[in-house]
């Protein structure tokens, strides 16, 4: 196991996906990547619980305090578009990293971080507007479950932005541990996961009327 970690750390492969088979591990795959997929699988349970709780409680509100009174679909659609496009810029960063093109890797990672920040800013604006209109965290079971679900997602996006900027910093200083392309790919997997969770939230929470 220690050998495996050392081999992974020194990055004994050229960075393409199919080098997963070249890893000196029991499975022949990258342990880091395997762990990331396992982590994302477990995250499905976290967000599944939050989405289910929201679905159960979305009707538990006062007569004029329901989703239809607060949602601003055009604004949320624009936010969704921004996050969707950040998935594109992320995948462009991953392909650039596989080509060992540091300049474009950093460029696309930075654009992804900017788009992610824009999404978080939109969420902060949305929360502030809802609060001013009378939808506080403890106003109803609906509001509590809504803020918890979208808040958890927002925190995940924020963590993703930090990961993206940290990766840019490490690439600039040439301090990436192990294989650079794999590190960018792992950050990308996390980022895309945040996007697919929003795909679910956008439809189930915003587009389907309570």
């Amino acid at each position, binding site marked *: 196991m220690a050998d495996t970690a050392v081999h992974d750390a020194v990055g004994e492969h050229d960075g393409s996906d199919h080098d997963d088979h070249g890893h000196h591990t029991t499975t022949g795959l990258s342990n880091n990547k395997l762990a990331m997929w396992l982590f994302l*699988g477990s*995250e*499905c349970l976290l967000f*599944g619980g939050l989405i*289910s709780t929201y679905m159960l409680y979305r009707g538990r509100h006062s007569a004029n305090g329901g989703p239809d009174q607060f949602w601003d679909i055009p604004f949320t659609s624009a936010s969704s578009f921004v996050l969707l496009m950040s998935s594109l810029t*992320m995948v462009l960063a991953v*392909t650039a990293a596989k080509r060992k093109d540091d300049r474009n890797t950093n460029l696309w990672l930075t654009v992804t971080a900017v788009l992610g920040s824009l999404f978080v800013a939109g969420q902060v604006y949305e929360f502030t507007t809802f609060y001013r209109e009378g939808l506080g965290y403890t106003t109803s079971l609906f509001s509590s479950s809504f803020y918890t679900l979208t808040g958890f997602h927002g925190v995940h996006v924020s963590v993703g932005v930090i990961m993206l900027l940290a990766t840019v910093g490490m690439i600039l200083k040439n301090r990436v541990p192990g294989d650079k392309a794999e590190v960018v790919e792992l950050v990308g997997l996390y980022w895309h996961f945040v996007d697919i969770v929003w*795909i679910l939230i956008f439809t189930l929470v915003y*587009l389907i009327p309570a």
Partner: protein
Amino acid sequence: MSTDIAHATEHDETHDEDHWSDLNYIKLALALAVITGIEVAISYMVDDLGAFFLPLLLGLMLIKFFSVVLFFMHLKFDNRLFSLMFYLGLGLAVAVYTAALFTFKFFSP
């Protein structure tokens, strides 16, 4: 023999992925953006679409979800063990929370 098949499959998958240029990813992202637009348009047509409203929206949502998972996250081209890790978690979540929603009579009219 089985090793040969595995190598052949791997080669095919490599070949497939090699064709996924940046342009392909851009095309996919644009398609997903169009689907998002269609979803938003559908959300304003609850009364017009009647019983088709929910299946249409959920279908489009799943198309977007699996497009990102399979292509942007490379799960279609990667080793199946990665798919297993993810789909086990996803399947468990769907099963557990569907059961929970049934328990709370969420699907009852």
